[in-house]
Structure formats: structure tokens, C-alpha cells
């Protein structure tokens, strides 16, 4: 009985919300914030940029909120066709031209993204034809839109989010008590090993190499890493190497192998000594 009542309530509620959507303004008056949008940017402005470029037929990729190469070429083609400086930057003039030439149905786009639908935003095509519902069901409008709107993220060239996550796990397991540069250093050693010909050629290979890392041997690698460890990994991937190209490190208080002391030492960071 109760469930029936609840169902009814939901039904009515969803109707009300659908109603509000219908009545509410179709077109959001404000467009783009003041920023100059450039390659690598993420966020709402990028979503609007992609949607407007798609409306005009320049952009055929996914509207995912990350200014990648596809968006870059689309923007340059737009600038070429509309007789502007071709610089791949969405500055004030370019944005104004875009706003004048295209329409942006923010409501529709954001809703599609929030629901995880596959959708497009081409001009002159009915909305219903541009979206494939993933979940299906009628009262989906009742679910509140989640905060995050980007369906893609930037990753460094050659790495996936999973690579970063795996490295963050290793860094956190090995060096969670260390200063920030000590964490970047551990990540850098992993990367130096990947590049070295005497170690495995993959991140996973280096991390799980038997007897290479104590955190792997005793299972500490499976602790959940914090954001700081992840940031340290990103810094290391982006080129920071506080170790000066080290391939080994050890804790002088707990190291049991005499061999490790024979390596030429580069420096000590926190509790770890880094060496070649």
C-alpha cells in the first residue's frame, strides 16, 4: 500500500518537475564566462563551446567538457570559416561570433550529461532524435542532477587514469608518512625504472616486480591513497624528479641488504636515501 502511495507521489512529482522544465526558459540568456578558453581547459565553458561548435557542424566529437584536440581543430575551422585570426583560442571576439551564430540549449545538454546519455547537439535536428536514453523509464527528470558535469578528464600523454591510480597506491603504501617531495620522489623512481632497460617496461611491471617494493610484499599497497599521493604522481609524470634520476631508494634504519649501501647515493629526502 505504502509503496503504491510512494509511487504515485513520485509520479506526480516527476510530472511537476517535467512541467517546470517545459515552462522554464529554453534558452539561457547568459553565455560563456569571461575567460579565454584554451586547449587543455575543462568545465562548463568548454561544454558550451563544444555544444555551440556542434550546433554549427564543426565539432563531431562527444560534448564532454574537456578541450582536447577535436575541439581545437573544430574551433580553428570555425575561426577560418568566419574570417577570424586562427589561433585556436576562444577569446571575446570568437565567443561573440559563436554566440551570434549558434544556439545553446544548456538545459538539454546538462540534463543529458547528468543522465549519462549519449547525445548530440546539432542545429536544426529535433532534440528527441539526438539523445539515446541509457536508463530508460519515464520519471527520470525527478532525479537531481549530480554536481560533476565533465564526462572526460585530462590525462598526461601516454598514461591512463588507472596507471595514475596504481602509482598513487604504490606511493601511498611506500611513502605516506614522507614529505610531499618524498612522495613525488618515489613516483619518479617508478618512472625512472620504467624507462631504464634493466627494469620492466610498464608501470605495473615495475610495481609488482617481486622483492622490489616492501609495500607490495606486505599488502600496504592496497590502502586507499589520498589526493596528495595522486597529486605527487601527476607531478612526477609531468616531469618533476626530486631524486635526480635515482633508480633505488632505501630507508637506512630498516634496510637489511648490504648491497644497497654500495650504490652511489644521490641524496636523502625524508627517511629515504635515493641512489643510482
Amino acid at each position: 500500500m505504502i509503496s503504491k502511495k510512494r509511487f504515485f507521489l513520485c509520479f506526480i512529482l516527476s510530472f511537476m518537475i517535467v512541467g517546470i522544465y517545459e515552462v522554464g526558459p529554453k534558452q539561457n540568456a547568459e553565455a560563456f564566462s569571461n575567460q579565454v578558453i584554451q586547449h587543455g581547459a575543462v568545465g562548463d565553458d568548454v561544454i558550451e563551446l563544444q555544444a555551440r561548435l556542434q550546433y554549427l557542424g564543426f565539432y563531431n566529437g562527444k560534448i564532454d567538457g574537456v578541450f582536447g584536440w577535436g575541439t581545437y581543430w573544430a574551433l580553428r575551422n570555425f575561426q577560418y570559416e568566419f574570417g577570424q585570426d586562427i589561433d585556436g583560442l576562444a577569446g571575446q571576439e570568437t565567443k561573440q561570433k559563436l554566440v551570434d551564430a549558434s544556439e545553446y540549449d544548456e538545459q538539454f545538454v546538462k540534463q543529458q550529461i547528468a543522465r549519462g546519455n549519449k547525445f548530440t547537439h546539432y542545429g536544426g535536428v529535433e532534440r528527441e532524435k539526438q539523445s539515446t536514453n541509457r536508463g530508460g523509464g519515464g520519471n527520470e527528470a525527478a532525479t537531481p542532477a549530480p554536481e560533476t558535469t565533465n564526462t572526460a578528464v585530462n590525462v598526461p600523454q601516454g598514461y591512463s587514469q588507472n596507471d595514475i591510480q596504481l602509482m598513487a597506491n604504490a606511493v601511498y603504501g611506500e611513502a605516506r608518512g614522507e614529505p610531499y617531495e618524498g612522495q613525488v620522489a618515489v613516483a619518479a623512481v617508478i618512472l625512472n625504472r620504467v624507462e631504464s632497460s634493466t627494469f620492466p617496461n610498464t608501470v605495473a611491471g615495475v610495481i609488482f616486480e617481486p622483492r622490489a617494493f616492501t609495500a607490495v610484499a606486505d599488502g600496504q599497497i592496497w590502502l586507499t591513497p589520498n589526493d596528495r599521493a595522486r597529486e605527487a604522481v601527476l607531478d612526477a609524470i609531468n616531469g618533476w624528479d626530486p631524486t635526480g634520476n635515482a633508480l633505488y631508494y632505501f630507508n637506512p634504519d630498516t634496510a637489511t641488504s648490504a648491497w644497497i649501501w654500495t650504490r652511489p647515493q644521490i641524496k636523502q629526502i625524508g627517511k629515504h636515501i635515493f641512489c643510482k
Partner: protein
Amino acid sequence: MIRWILIGILTLGIAGTAFWGYQEHQEKNAILTQAENTYQRSFHELSYYMDLLHDEIGTALAMNSDQRLSPQMVEIWRLTSEASSNVGQLPLGLLPFNKTEEFLSNIGDFTYRTAVRNLDDEPLTEEETKTLQQYYKQSSEIEQELREVQHLALENNLRWMDVQLALVNNEEQLDNTIIDGLKTVEDKVGGYSEANIDSSVIGISNQQNEPYKSITGKKVSEQEALNIAKDLFEVKDSDKLTIAESGKGADIPIYSVSYNGDDKHAYTDISQQGGKPLSLLINRQINENKISLNEGLKKAEEYVNRLGFDDMIFFRSSEYGNTGAYSFLSSQDGVRIYPDAIEVKVALDNGDIMGITADNYYRNHKERDIPEPKVTKEEAKEMVNPNVDIQEEYLAVIDNDLGEEVLTYEFLGTYGDDTYRIFINALNGMEEKVEKLGGTEINYAIN
């Protein structure tokens, strides 16, 4: 009396058994962890090789049927064999994973056949190009499914030992993400009846030449280094600074200075000769974004100029959470010098510089003797795969596969939905390097 002795013996016996049991237990756990680690390694490597395989097939598509293509086919062939050996090591005896293996061996056969024949006399036929395109599409789907499984496995800390147990016990109700995920991968494949990390061109260090040639000047004292560090950290209190000298394993003698304040932590490496900051890292809480990636670029450019690097040109930018990462290359007579790279990190809440690394720059920078191109731009363009739509062009110095610096024409072009960076040697017209550009990925965390 006898009773007490008996009790004593028994207690000892129990304690001994307990100790022995505990040791056995420890050993068993150690072995389990080791087995688990082997499985984890195979799985993550498999996923990595599938990533790489997809990129390499894409790169092969953008190559011109020429000297470069044969080595590329060999590379793909090598990757398929690495990947299938990883599949073989997973505890999937009870889960049919043979279609994926078949897919891998199909690609392997195809690339082997094309690699061993002389592509100059018999270039890829149209049909073969189509096959390759199909492999490209299929490998993309497998790659994405595997990444999804990998993401779930990492997020939920899934254990392969559990998978194995579940498979052995054949539990019906089990909700096992790995098994479900891998079944999806397998279904995807059933439907069809090393760009490795160090091949990135930017900032590759040229080990043969004497490094850090560009660093000159007199040796600075510890006190001077501390002052330089204070400027870099933008702090005044000296008592929170610590300084250390590098050991004999370092490529160049440096001072490392760290600052441990209440609200921020900072670290820098300064060369002992000349007092040049090789790298700087600042760590603090970064709040919500207030400035755009583009405004951050202005700050980064200002900073690079302030540190006295001239002739630097902006190369690329990426927004990661609340920070912007910017790369700069040096430029000599309008030629982009890839080995001389500088990276800058800017906090996007207030535009503070969060770090710079100029190690590659100092290691490789020198006044270069850049020769005149012997191949014209038009001739170089003809060396590029005709399917690639060239959009931008530059002259660039890169390190080639042999580790030598070469002058090249750099072309940015598109093929299908992908963007490629292609380097053609400006002296002999060889295709030196083809790189498929990525940089974005589906956000698995929200799906």
C-alpha cells in the same frame, strides 16, 4: 607434583603449537600475497598493453607505407605476444577468455605477415588497410572495457585470489565485478567473428653529450643558496629552512632546500655552480578555481621570463583539478627545440606558482648548430601518409630513436577523429617519429 609437571608440559605443548600455527599462517599469507601480486601484475600489464596496442595500431594507420611501417608492425606483433602471455598468466582457467586470445593472435598473425614482406615493393593493399582499421576499432573497444574493469578493481580493491575462489566454488549469487567485467570484454570480442612511455618526444635527455653544459658561473655558498630558495618560496623566516648537499651519485652537485611552514611546504634543487634552480615544488591546500587556464598561462609565462629563460615558447597546457600544467620549449631561430623543455605548475585559485622543473632544460640546453633543411617543406609533406590532413607545421629539433638530435619538419595532422604529430627528417626525408596524441579520457569515476 606430577599434576603440575603434566600441566607444565601441556602448556608448553599448546604454546608451541600456537607458535607453529602462527608461523604457518604467516607463511601462507606471504605466499598468498605473492601469488596475488603476480596476478595483479599480469592484469594491469594486460590492460596497459591493450592501451598501447590500440595506440600503436592507430599510429601505423597514420604512417606512410615506407621504412617506418615494418618496424611498427614488428612492434605491434611484439605487443600482442606480450598481451597474450599476460592473459595466459591470469587465473582464468575456469573462465572462457579464448576469444580475446584469438583476437590478439589474429592481430599478431596479420602484423607478422606484413612485417616480414618488403613493404616498399608491396605496400599495404586497400583491403589490408581496412583490416587494420577494423583492428583499430576493435582494440579500442576492448581497451575501454578493460580499463573499466581495471578501474572497478582498483576502486573496490578486488583480489584475484577471491576471483579464483569464486570460480572454484562456482557460487551462483556472487556479484563479482572482475568476472562480470571480463565476461563483457569476452562478449565484445566474440561479436567480431611501446608509443610507450619513454617515446614521448619532449624533454628527452641526451645522455651521450656532456649534460648541464649551459650551467656556468661560480660556486655559490650555502647561505647564497638559502637566499635563492627564500626568494623562490616567497618566505622570510629562515629558521624553517633546511639545506643539504647532494651525494656523489648526483649528475651535478646541488643544494636541496626544503621549507616546512604551517600552511605550505616547499622544496627546491639549486645547482651549486651558478645557483640555478633546477626544480621547485610547492605544496599547499588549493581552493576552488578562481582563474582560468588561460590566465594561469600568463602567470606561468611571466614566471619563466622572470627566472631569466629567454626564447621560450608555450607548447601545451592541461587543467588537472585545481592546477594548470604548462609546458614550454626553447626556440632557436624559429625552430622548436624539444629536448629543452620546462614545465610550470600554477594554482588556479589565486595564480600562485606551485612548481617549475627546468632540469631537462639545463641538462640539454646549448647553442645549437642548426643546419639548413635539405628537403623542402613540400617534399616533406609528400612523405606523410596521404590520408593524414596536415593542419599545422613547424621546424623542430628532436631526439630520434638512436638518441641523436635531428632537425625535422613537424606536422600536426588529423586522420579520422585522431590527431597525430609527425616528424619528417629535414635532411633526408625519413619519417623519424609518428605520435598519436591523446590527453583526454572518459571519466570513469562518475559513470
